[in-house]
């Protein structure tokens, strides 16, 4: 059974149809990529899945629950986490605190308990810190724990954001162009990291422009064009799909085919 099931979803901004009756599934443990030219609706699709946008019509199921119309925080609690195209760290906090925010939806003490340090609350706080530290170590940035988030390099922000997303213990991780702005070496590291995350049992849905990375990582690929699905299949099927080649005429497709 599919972990994520997007069924006939449609979304428009004013008169512009950004997503036009798109359906797809993501199987548990899969790395699935969404590709398409700029303006194809990839990020819109992500925003719909994680609840930032509400679809005009269509349904989204996660596991055995319908999550259509859920608020982003509810979706995060259900087990879907994400990173943003531009790393969206909390710049007033340090790196560790950023990751600790990721633990929010898996912890429970509220205003009163935290204010009076009710027995059990300090313990939970320590556990949050420990878990966040562990995530930072996992992405290899434990040495930056006390560093203000604003002082990080771009690539480091990406990794901290990934650690923060992992701290929510997601079953499904949405990565929105994780490779953009990274150099070749950082991209290779990223690819390894994404594989390791998958090995932890986290399913991954990826939007990415770098075809090398996509073809290398993905189990399945969904191609969007002008908000509509034009192809879906394994990397080799996509590379040989006439429709896809036409859409990508020249540019990126040649590059992907060469790899």
């Amino acid at each position, binding site marked *: 059974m599919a972990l994520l099931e997007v069924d006939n979803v449609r979304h428009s901004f004013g008169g512009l149809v950004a997503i036009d009756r798109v359906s797809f599934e993501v199987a548990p443990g899969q790395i699935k990529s969404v590709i398409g030219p700029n303006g194809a609706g990839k990020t819109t699709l992500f925003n719909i899945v*994680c*609840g*930032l946008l509400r679809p005009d019509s269509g349904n989204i199921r996660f596991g055995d629950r319908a999550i259509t119309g859920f*608020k*982003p*925080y509810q979706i*995060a*609690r259900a087990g879907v*986490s*994400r990173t*943003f195209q531009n790393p*969206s*760290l*909390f*710049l*007033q*906090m*340090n790196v560790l*605190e950023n990751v*600790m*925010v*990721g*633990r*929010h*939806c*898996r*912890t429970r*003490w*509220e*205003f009163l308990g*935290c*204010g*009076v*340090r009710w027995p059990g*609350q300090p313990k*939970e*706080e320590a556990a*949050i810190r420990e878990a966040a530290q562990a995530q930072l170590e996992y992405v290899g940035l434990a040495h930056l724990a*006390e*560093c*203000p988030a604003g*002082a990080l390099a771009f690539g480091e922000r990406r990794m901290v954001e990934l650690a*923060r*997303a992992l701290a*929510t213990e997601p079953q499904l991780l949405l990565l929105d162009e994780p490779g953009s702005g990274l150099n070749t070496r950082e991209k290779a590291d990223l690819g390894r990291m994404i594989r390791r995350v998958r090995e932890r049992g986290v399913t991954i849905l990826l939007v990415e422009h770098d075809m090398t990375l996509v073809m290398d990582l993905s189990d399945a690929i969904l191609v969007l064009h002008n908000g509509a699905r034009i192809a879906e299949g394994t990397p080799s099927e996509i590379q040989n799909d006439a429709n896809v080649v036409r859409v990508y005429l020249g540019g990126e497709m040649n590059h992907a085919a060469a790899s």
Partner: protein
Amino acid sequence: MKPRLKPGLPFVLLAAALAIVPWILRRAEMEYCLTQLTMSLYYAIVVLGLCLVMGYAGQVSLGHGAFFAIGGYTSAVLTTCDVSKWQTAAWLGWIKQSPFCIAREDLFGNPILTVSPWAAFFAAMALTFVVANLIGYPALRLRGHYLAMATLGFGMIVHKVILGTAFTGAADGINGVPEWNLGLGLTVSGKRPLRIENYFIAGGLLLLLLVLLHNLVRSRVGRALQAIHDRETAANAMGINTALYKLKTFVLSALMAAMAGVFFTHYTAGIGPSEAGAFKSVRYVALAAAGGMSSLWGVTGMSTLLNYMSLRGLFGSYDNAVFGLLLIGIVSLAPEGPLKPLARLVRRLAGACRPPNAAQPDAARPNNGLEGRPRHGAA
């Protein structure tokens, strides 16, 4: 990384500082200053609550004077209104025996039956809770200047309703509010022999709330609030119910303002409509900004100091001018509040005293020696 100072130490120091003030003032034969000091401590509670809303959750409220007034007026009305008029009502017999009511004498020595201060306190808290939720729920969906206007409008409504209603005393306010026996031998009252005791009640309450908020902002909730302040979208995507957290913060700070209002009203034995005025609300926001907004200590200190100077009338007819100039000066020169730059200075001095090889190589990391201090903004 173990903090060198115990985390509780600043509070112990503050408590000690609060405790020696009356002793110093007695030595200097200036005990009369305690009255204004007590009042400014109560005002500081309002600003402290606002600090949570503005500095942490990143919202703004120009209506906190109204919550102070709702607390004060509820308690003033209930504790001065003679319920024995309804002597004939059957339920009064039961009410009379209950702890909700007390029989006492009014200012002219006539026997009256009024609601007891404790019951009035809880009524005030309950009313504030309801009002804050009713106004906060729709208002907190607004942003920036629109939120400011909505809260300002709410404050104006409360102010004008109080001014235009007979049982709140219209322009005269309410006088003759009785003293409040808290139990444990403590009484909130403006009587002269109780001056020191009341100073300690106000100081203790402020300290207690300061500790609670300090714990709160350094917990999962505090981080969530700062995340909302920084990037609301990302905070929501990380599983924080941003709308609910903003509302809870708003209600909490409204309750603090109302609590200050209740104590203040019993302490000064009355309350006037100016407490609800827009000027008061704006002043609270200004004081929070002058204290550094996200700096609990800076905000508490700054608002106690400035209010005290105002209430003592230290600048005579130039009081407002001085307040305005200080506000402009502090906010333009030290937008983070006075404490953070001060802490940096201390840190730099400490760094200069240390042998060069022991100095921290990475300036971006906080100095361990100051771990015990509250880390303003980033805490």
